């Protein structure tokens, strides 16, 4: 047992304590959870220092399964990738828990909230530390359960509990892919131990490429679900039904990152299959662009942020797909921290504005607005490193294919639309003055964007980009042992700044400018196709409706049809009709054979006997005759007995039993 087992155990213990004694501790659950999560954060820092100095740490726990040739040993595998994620998860958790302790005051389900969030923190830390794919899968699902429980927090609200069920189901479909991927990996590598798999993959295993492609794509299906990539992205906006701290913690900063994390964790395997890489990049790119445009059209702050999260997750997936794993993690960390912060700062504003962008309430303080805009910017800025020096040959290498150009354009397009979204959200939320005043042609100019501010923002931007590049070049060295190398990408991580980075920044500024120019302008002059396009994206591409009409309803209808027609109508009716059928067979036997044949025969024999007896009487009038008569009568009686056999329930049963017994005996006789 290592001290690092405390990282999940502290929040886990807190979760169980609060869950079990929650009703007695009403309203003070956070006093147990916050220290536990903070403690876990401090242990994570210790782990970080340890890894920085001594390299990878392995902790083995116990043997979960040892059946046949399947052996599953649970343990932790803490390397540079893991510690960074640990810092993110426990750090954000601590901040969010402190925030929630105020946000959740007076909530009817206070203890439940803290118990589940603590359980979530434990699950996510185990997930990132797991040294076994099965353990990863287990806590992947546990995180999903926590998400479900938190989305249904306001359980009396119809939209909340319906969203919770839908979110879980979308994820469980994707997780089928993940579990199949886990079993495929076991078949391909003969083990589920992650360090072993990674070293095998790095050493070059003799596994056919199509197997690697299949298992990678199956694992990626899980990532599509958890990280809300298309076509499973519909769940993340629904998840905004959860209390805002949860949106910050789970649905923006931590859990949704599990997808890119998994891809980077298994990067040495993934890079063995160019096909899988292409698919990953394509899905990431499409998601990034689509979600960026949709987020531009949404009117609800939380939903805008949700789509912006999807877009950024798409960007991370794209980075993984093109082999820029370090950049993906860099983006993941930065996005995680800043998005959490963004959601928390939104939390207060949302209370005032009732979640709607178009109805600003009290004028928020300028400083808060600036922080808001800054956080939003920072959360989307880091992917720009992809355009800086080390990665330029991703786009401009000798195999400068059409696909690469497409990805490049999509990446830049995402930057453009994201910048527009930032500008729009910021200007809308912090527009000065009540909406009623902005009638006619009066344009309301947000004070935030005076010239002074713009210059300030640009300067800050320059400084930040330099800082980011600096942090990034350190990160590239630190992470390099953990990630697979697709091409010569990570070979020269320190080449730093290049002029290429100016391109996305320029495009971003252009996007900002377009949005700014459009502020307050009326939409009446727009053409028909523009309106249609707008409506299309406003409705999020109609994904929810398509799923509802083509998947959910047909499934329920099929279930109902199968039950009524097949189960009740055919199988059950057939079986039930066997009862009356056997009764009919018995009745037929009774009438035709018993009454018609045997009975008649017996009666005939009986009366004959009587006749014989009488005749014998003529001869001998002895005992013989009387006896014969007696036998005849007796036979007569026994022959008639079945007539009294009315078909009542019990007799039905007996008849059926006798019938089957006869069948069975015949069968038995035949085989013997």
């Amino acid at each position, binding site marked *: 047992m290592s001290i690092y087992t405390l990282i999940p155990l502290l929040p886990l213990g807190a979760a169980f304590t609060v869950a079990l004694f929650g*009703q007695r501790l009403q309203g003070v659950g956070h006093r147990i959870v916050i220290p536990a999560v903070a403690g876990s954060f401090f242990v994570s820092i210790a782990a970080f220092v340890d890894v920085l100095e001594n390299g990878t740490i392995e902790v083995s726990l116990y*043997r*979960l*399964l*040892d*059946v*046949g*040739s*399947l052996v599953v040993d649970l343990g932790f595998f803490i390397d540079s990738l893991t510690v960074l994620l640990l810092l993110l998860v426990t750090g954000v958790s601590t901040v969010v828990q402190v925030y929630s302790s105020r946000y959740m005051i007076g909530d009817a389900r206070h203890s439940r909230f803290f118990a589940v969030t603590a359980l979530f923190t434990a699950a996510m830390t185990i997930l990132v530390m797991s040294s076994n794919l*099965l353990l990863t*899968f*287990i806590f*992947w*699902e*546990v995180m999903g*359960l926590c998400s*479900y429980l938190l989305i249904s927090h306001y*359980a*009396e609200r*119809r939209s909340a509990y*319906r969203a*919770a*069920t839908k979110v*879980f*189901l979308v994820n*469980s*479909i994707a997780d*089928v892919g993940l*579990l*199949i991927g886990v*079993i495929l990996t*076991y*078949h391909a590598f*003969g083990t589920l131990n992650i360090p072993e798999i990674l070293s095998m993959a790095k050493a070059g295993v003799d596994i056919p490429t199509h197997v690697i492609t299949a298992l990678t794509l199956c694992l990626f299906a899980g990532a599509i679900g958890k990280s809300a990539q298309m076509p499973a992205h519909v769940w993340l906006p629904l998840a905004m039904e959860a209390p805002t701290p949860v949106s910050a913690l789970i649905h923006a900063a931590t859990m949704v990152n599990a997808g890119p994390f998994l891809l980077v964790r298994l990067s040495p395997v993934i890079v063995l299959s160019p096909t899988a890489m292409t698919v990953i990049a394509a899905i990431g790119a499409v998601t990034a662009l689509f979600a960026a445009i949709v987020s531009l059209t949404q009117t609800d702050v939380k939903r805008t942020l949700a789509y912006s999260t999807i877009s950024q997750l798409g960007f991370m997936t794209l980075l993984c797909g093109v082999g820029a794993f370090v950049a993906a993690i860099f983006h993941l960390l930065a996005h995680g921290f800043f998005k959490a912060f963004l959601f928390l700062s939104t939390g207060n504003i949302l209370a005032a504005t009732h979640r709607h962008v178009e109805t600003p309430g009290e004028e928020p303080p300028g400083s808060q607005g600036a922080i808001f805009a800054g956080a939003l910017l920072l959360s989307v800025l880091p992917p720009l490193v992809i355009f800086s020096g080390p990665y330029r040959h991703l786009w401009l290498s000798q195999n400068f294919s059409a696909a690469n150009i497409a990805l490049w354009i999509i990446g830049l397009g995402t930057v453009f639309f994201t910048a527009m979204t930032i500008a729009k959200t910021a200007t809308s939320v912090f527009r000065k003055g009540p909406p009623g005043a902005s009638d006619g042609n009066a344009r309301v100019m947000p004070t935030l964007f005076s010239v002074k501010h713009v210059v300030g923002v640009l300067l800050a931007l320059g400084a930040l980009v330099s800082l980011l590049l600096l942090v990034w070049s350190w990160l590239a060295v630190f992470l390099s042992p953990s990630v697979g190398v697709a091409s010569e990408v990570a070979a020269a991580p320190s080449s730093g700044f290049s002029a290429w980075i100016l391109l996305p920044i320029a495009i971003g500024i252009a996007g900002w400018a377009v949005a700014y120019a459009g502020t307050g302008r009326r939409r009446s002059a727009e053409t028909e196709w523009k309106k249609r396009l707008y409506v299309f994206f406003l409705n999020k591409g109609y994904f929810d409706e398509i799923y509802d009409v083509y998947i959910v309803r047909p*499934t*329920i209808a*099929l*279930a*109902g049809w*199968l*039950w*009524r027609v097949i*189960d009740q109508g055919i*199988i*059950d009716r057939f*079986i*039930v009709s*066997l*009862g009356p059928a056997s009764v009919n067979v018995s009745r037929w036997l009774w009438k035709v054979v018993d009454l018609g044949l045997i009975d008649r025969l017996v009666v005939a024999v009986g009366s004959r006997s009587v006749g014989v007896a009488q005749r014998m009487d003529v001869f001998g009038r002895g005992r013989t005759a009387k006896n014969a008569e007696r036998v005849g009568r007796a036979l007569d009686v026994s022959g008639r007995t079945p007539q009294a056999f009315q078909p009542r*329930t019990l007799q039905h*049963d007996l008849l*059926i*039993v006798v019938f*089957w017994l006869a*069948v*069975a005996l015949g*069968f*038995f006789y035949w*085989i*013997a």
Partner: protein
Amino acid sequence: MSAIFADHLLSWMIAVPFIGIAALAIVRGRSGIVITALVTTLVEALLALRLWIGFDSAEKGMQYVERMEWMPTFGIQYAVGVDGISILLVLLTAVLCPLCVLASWNSITTRVRAFMMLILLVEGAMMVVFTALDAFLFFMLWEVTMIPMYFMIVLWGGPDRVAAGLKFVLYSLTGSLFLLVGILGLSLQADTFDIQSLAGAAYSPESQLWIFVALFLGFAIKLPMLPFHTWLPDAHSEAPTAGSVLLAGVLLKMGGYGLIRFCLPIFPEVSSQFAPFVLWLSIAAILYGGYMALAQSDLKRLVAYSSVSHMGFVTLGIFSFNSEGIEGAILQMVTHGITTGALFLMVGQLYDRTHSRSMADYGGLHKRMPRFVAVLSLFVVASFGLPATSNFIGEFLILVGVSYEHFIFVVLAMGGIVLGAAYMLWMLQRVALGEPRTEAARGLTDLSVREMITVIPLAIAVFGIGVYPGPFLEAMDSTVLFVVEQFEQAGLAITTPE
């Protein structure tokens, strides 16, 4: 004294329920009756615990064996013993019965004495079925289990109880006849009723097929496999709570147990010939059961159809002929007994309050019954195999086992897991979340201490086995390996990943 006790532990376990029945005949007063029944079942559970502690996991053969001549003319013995296949099912039976007594504490208002006697009768009979080493003994007590179940359904059941009871009996009798034919066929050819000797005996090739089919049909109807399942929703939904728990928790397992005890070791070749057919039938049952459950509006029928789906996993595991699959199947049987038993107990707790099984009559229970909803959620997630529950371990092992056969089975069986999540979560949503839909649902009271005691041990078991399944799998390991080796030696099964 202790020698008498220790050497005859299994006989004691078989005797205790019958002693309890005798005691029930004398005891007077309602509370006396239920307490006697509870004490009997608890003593049985303690004996089972003693059995488990003394069980040697390394031993592949039978343990605690007791033999006595019974009908020497026919070579019929009273012979009992446990091995890795039966020990967990014995434990399961012993754990569920006290909970059944507790669940019937207030809900059975008429003829309590008779009801408790029937519970004990089922328990005693099940103990013999799971421990019998003699095929005749096995069959006799197999038949005995049917009678108390029939009376439970017909005398204490729901509104449609007579039809349900009749259907149950007809199906069971049909199954038993096939089973009788199979067992007689076996013993005539092998000239013994001893189950262990049956496996090594020589059977003529043409009779093998027919005996296998007869045995298989007998077990398949009890399990139940598609398309012999229609007795199950009726019997489960009309039976009183304790009846449903015993049916789903223990009685169905006789089918799976029979397959592992008879079909596999005695006829490995025929089993592997039939395997593709059975595997496809299992997949059909998994998906079909899931769809059926999705269409239900009655809580008990939903749980009943989910059993069809889960039993599909059991046959899927058994007919993959490797340690992973078979151990997964046994674990799945145990774990299904626990989870489904618990779900029936909880539905029964609702039924006791409102006398309605329809989901439409509930809703919003989280407000008035937070404890109930918390515990129900645990079993709901367990039922669709959420990781960290024992159900997941069972299903995962089965999936790994069947993946050696063909990957298509894994992919299709996954569909059942998704359907499971769908119908279970929709059930939870309709019952527990939102606003109460009826006046009755508004005035409910939360679980009492007795009711909590009824379900909490099961929750602990589900998560305990899920997190640390080691001892339970270890207990089966050598015995299952013994069965699997036959298939390996005959080259009938693949047991390692490619």
